[in-house]
């Protein structure tokens, strides 16, 4: 029954995503594309942080690697898919290498290591003009053609992004539901215990960084044709914090958390525009209130409300045994 309901809700959600851009202007479709793309980046970070418990403040730098690689490859006349694959593989390898410090340092020390990496990627993209165009960035990247159909217009590009998003979400769901997902959670909750149960925590930590970073790379590969102009500021440290905010606000360690979080971070400011100069303040206060009263994010808030509505009586299993004393 629960499985059937889940499939029905998934199909409904997919249906909403298919009809959402119909009749909308270019800007709204652009926002929906941004939401899907940042959700991909946030889902990658959710695996590293939410499931495996490894803090990373470098997700924007992996978007940069994916975006610049795709831009350079497509500007050279190669198809988008080649640039995307190259960017994702680069991020897998670089993410794996970034995972090595995580074997030695934890918590805020690891956060600083990843922050430094983000700064390093920013400096490379700003200073290596011959490759990245420096502060002027790269522009004019073509949008991909799929089976002969151009995605140059906003609506086809939205459906193209939606397709990539669905494929990536299915892959992530497969990983999280597999024994790997269980091992990632074990690593997050008690690495010493996990190791004593045969979980190779070193290999798993590296994998968490590699797969999560690849998500960032894929998001970057989609940003490049979406905006058709990238420069170093598009992937500065502040953007890594934004992606982190998406994961935490949505619900870290929940599959649908990043989707909700990205919606809040990208779409909510648009809904608050009527408040003019106050929208950022209102937005900040809402985030503070949410984090104070529900640190497990919007999904956690939903679970709390559900428990309030239908309280489940909990039987203490040890009472019967105690009565026999």
């Amino acid at each position: 029954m629960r499985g059937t309901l889940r499939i029905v809700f998934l199909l409904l959600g997919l249906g909403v995503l298919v009809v959402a851009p119909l009749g909308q202007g270019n800007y709204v479709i652009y926002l929906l594309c941004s939401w899907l793309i940042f959700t991909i980046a946030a889902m990658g970070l959710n695996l590293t942080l939410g499931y495996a418990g490894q803090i990373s403040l470098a997700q924007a730098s992996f978007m940069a690697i994916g975006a610049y690689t795709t831009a350079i490859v497509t500007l050279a006349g190669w198809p988008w898919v080649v640039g995307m694959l190259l960017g994702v593989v680069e991020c897998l390898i670089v993410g794996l290498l970034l995972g090595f410090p995580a074997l030695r340092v934890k918590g805020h020390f690891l956060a600083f290591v990843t922050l430094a990496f983000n700064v390093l990627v920013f400096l490379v993209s700003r200073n290596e003009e011959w490759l990245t165009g420096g502060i002027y960035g790269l522009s004019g990247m073509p949008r991909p053609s799929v089976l002969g159909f151009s995605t140059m217009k906003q609506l086809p590009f939205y459906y193209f992004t939606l397709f990539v998003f669905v494929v990536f979400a299915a892959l992530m769901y497969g990983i999280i539901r597999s024994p790997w997902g269980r091992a990632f959670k074990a690593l997050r909750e008690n690495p010493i215990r996990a190791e004593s149960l045969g979980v190779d925590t070193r290999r798993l930590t590296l994998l968490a960084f590699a797969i999560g970073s690849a998500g960032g790379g894929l998001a970057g590969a989609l940003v490049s044709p979406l905006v058709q102009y990238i420069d170093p500021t598009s992937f500065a440290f502040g953007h890594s914090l934004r992606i982190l905010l998406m994961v935490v606000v949505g619900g870290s360690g929940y599959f649908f958390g990043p989707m909700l979080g990205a919606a809040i971070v990208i779409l909510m400011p648009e809904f608050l525009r009527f408040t003019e100069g106050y929208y950022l303040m209102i937005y900040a206060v809402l985030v503070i209130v949410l984090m104070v009263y529900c640190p497990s994010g919007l999904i956690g808030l939903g679970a709390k409300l559900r428990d309030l509505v239908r309280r489940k009586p909990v039987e203490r299993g040890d009472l019967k045994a105690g009565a026999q004393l």
Partner: protein
Amino acid sequence: MPPVLTVRDLSKAFGAIRAVDGVSFDVHPGEILGLIGPNGSGKSTLFNCILGQLAPDTGRVEVNGRDVSGRRACDLNKLGVGRTFQQLSVFPQMTVLDNIIVAGQEHRGTMIGRLFGAPDAGLTAEADRMIEFFRLSHLRDEMAGSLSYGQQKLVDAAMAFMAGPSLVLLDEPAGGVNLTMLANLKDRLVAYNREHATTFVVIEHNMEFVMALCSRIIVLAEGRVIAEGTPEEIRSNQTVIDAYLGG
């Protein structure tokens, strides 16, 4: 039969303090060996050196005749060594069932095979049997973190046995557990030992528990073995009475 566990001249110092000082002993198949001693006698350090969580300064550890000195805890587990911890060490935000499955899944196939295999690694039925054996069936789908202390200790023990180890090291399994749970735990450990001939090494301060459970006891004081024998011999050993049991 050759010993399941052989420890030879194992030493570990922290600065000037020799926590474990030239300890040697053998543990035979199917035996339940107790390791007792006052606080600071080196029991947990000895465990951690055997289990690869601390690197010993000198000495050798063999499991089933294979030198495992310096091997990582995950490799030891694959060689058939399970353990429980002094502190609660379940995965609190996972269900009891998932706690038990994760304890067995790393023994199923290759890492890549597990990614493409069944979500439960084909272990649900086996995990259910283990849950039933430890009388936790009514808690199967509860989050492990929501259970009582004693129930979590039982889950911890079930996790240690899930991969079918030949040797299990239990670090203070009775610590903080109420009398009812303690009787249940002892009963389950004895039953498991009888059914599977699994070898246990138990660190414990609860003398009643350890004397009733173990067939042989080693007493440590200041990192050294000061006595070894059956529970009756240990009870009447004057050195042990002076150093640990009291008059």
